């Protein structure tokens, strides 16, 4: 190759690279650098203000491993995820199945079910904490739920829903499911539409009843979609935290803590930036491992 064409090649290369430069520049500053910094800070003790950061190796990780509150917060996130996986996804699946037939108002239902997912977690959390409000005014409950329970003959069920450690997390998980089931619904509905109707006809000809064709046609055909929804539910529910802030307030509320609120409070509350990053790295690692194995499983299923 002559010198001249090499130079021209370089020029074209550079010109073309300029197209991606703005994106790469923003990405380098606001993603790559913080990505590096979260690993770096996780090995330091730093209060966020002082000019020197103390390098402490893996001490933060050792501390985290023995941090009872951290593992408790992990348990809370698992509980929310469990409710989302069962209650929310079964509901979404049932609704999608009900809509996947010649049924009137199908478009109307889809429109309504996807309203909660487009609302912000702040709006959803504040509306529901108003409905679940436990205050009293002149002996009458303020919150709608307590009022209704009192009025319709269940005064003994009137409850401090969001302050009682026994019910707070369940309330959050249910509201989280209320906000999230529309996602599962639209994904399942799209999945149902790819199933060949002839499979059901064939099953019917073979004398299969509803449950036979449900277990032998619907479930096997939907497995890849089900796995996608499971992975998305786990990733989304384990990291949900804004809804918790908006439902129980921004203070430290031990019984509703999840890993991400621990990270947030380690930074804003106790000014331990290094430890906050250690939590982030550890939690991110756990999520990657879990989703990797689930994905491996779903690929196996596809081949089988």
């Amino acid at each position, binding site marked *: 190759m002559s010198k001249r064409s090499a130079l021209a090649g370089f020029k074209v*290369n*550079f010109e*073309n690279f300029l*197209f*991606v430069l*703005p*994106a790469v520049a*923003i*990405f380098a*500053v606001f*993603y790559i650098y*913080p990505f590096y*910094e979260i690993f770096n*800070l996780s090995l330091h003790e730093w209060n*966020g203000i002082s000019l020197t950061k103390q390098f402490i190796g893996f001490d933060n990780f050792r501390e985290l491993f023995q941090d009872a509150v951290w593992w408790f917060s992990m348990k809370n996130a698992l509980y929310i995820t469990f409710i989302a996986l069962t209650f929310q996804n079964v509901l979404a699946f*049932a*609704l999608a199945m009900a*809509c996947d037939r010649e*049924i009137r108002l199908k478009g109307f*239902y889809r*429109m*309504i079910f*996807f*309203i*909660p997912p*487009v*609302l*912000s*977690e*702040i*709006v*959803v959390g*504040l*509306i529901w904490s*108003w409905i679940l409000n436990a205050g009293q*005014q*002149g002996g*009458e409950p303020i919150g*709608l739920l307590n*009022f209704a329970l009192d*009025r319709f003959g269940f005064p003994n069920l009137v409850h401090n829903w969001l302050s009682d450690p026994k019910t707070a997390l369940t309330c959050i998980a249910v509201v989280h499911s*209320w906000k999230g089931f529309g996602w599962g619904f*639209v994904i399942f509905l*799209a999945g149902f539409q790819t199933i060949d109707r002839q499979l059901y006809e064939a099953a019917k000809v073979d004398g299969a009843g509803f449950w036979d064709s449900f277990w032998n046609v619907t479930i096997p055909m939907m497995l890849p979609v089900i796995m996608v929804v499971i*992975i*998305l539910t786990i*990733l989304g529910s384990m*990291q949900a935290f804004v809804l918790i*802030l*908006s439902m129980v307030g921004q203070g430290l509320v031990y019984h509703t803590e999840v890993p991400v609120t621990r*990270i947030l409070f380690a*930074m*804003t509350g106790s000014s331990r930036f290094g430890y*906050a*990053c250690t939590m*982030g790295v550890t939690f*991110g690692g756990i*999520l990657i491992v879990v*989703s990797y194995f689930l*994905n491996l499983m779903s690929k196996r299923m596809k081949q089988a």
Partner: protein
Amino acid sequence: MNLTLPNRYQVIRGVKTSLTHLFLLTVAATCLFPLFWMVRSSLMSNQTIFTDKSLVPAQMYFHNYVTAWTQGNFGIYFLNSVIYTVSVVVGIVLVSSLAAYAFSRLQFWGKNAFFYMFIAAMMIPLPGSFVPLTVLMNKLHLVNTRLGYILCMINVGLSLSILLFKTFFDKIPSDLEDSARIDGCSKLGIWWHVALPLARPAIAVVVIFNALNVWNEYILATLLLSDKALMPLQRGLMVFQGSHSVDYPVLMAGLTIAAAPIIIVYLFMQDQIVKGALRERSSITEFL
């Protein structure tokens, strides 16, 4: 007219359909009722809200919206949300379509490496990334500035938008671009005059998806903006809710102000929104 009684098969099918509708309608009502309750509560007075539990209050106080807009600061928060949403969306459309065009059509060294870097970022969950980001913004003196928040939010939407644009460009034939090139149009000119107008459906999805995302964002707005004059709605709602004695009717008016634009846009564009949402979710898992 057929006056014979419906046969057993028809009765069973009718009952089944009714039960299905009952089920679907119950869930639909559960979706809508909290929103109805929000609007209803926003029309009560400060006294009646605690005592009156009727579905439609006897007297409606529309003045709560004026109070929320002015004294509650929601007018400023609303304006800020509009500013952030518009600037971030415009920024993302320009930056990501430019990059995606190059990833789809042009050749340069390290092209695949750069592309997979963006895709990898989309799949790697990084909880707590707001910690180093806050540190960085402090260092750059971009805390409490509109620019800082806008740049951060552009970055958040970049990966998925690049992917959406690239898959779109990959699918459309390059005939028009070829003839534009023969006519002597520059590469940048082809992107602006030919590729971008063709990509209108992709632009629609990118705009809607990112607009929802920015309008509803809370955590970065909290960590980066402490000046009330710069806060968007979601942040403002939490400030209002955190004040010592919460004025519930005004808070509910504020919630309605924050939720109404989203719901209205959703009702008009629900097809694109649901499609965009599906595309977003499927692209997160498809590369794992």
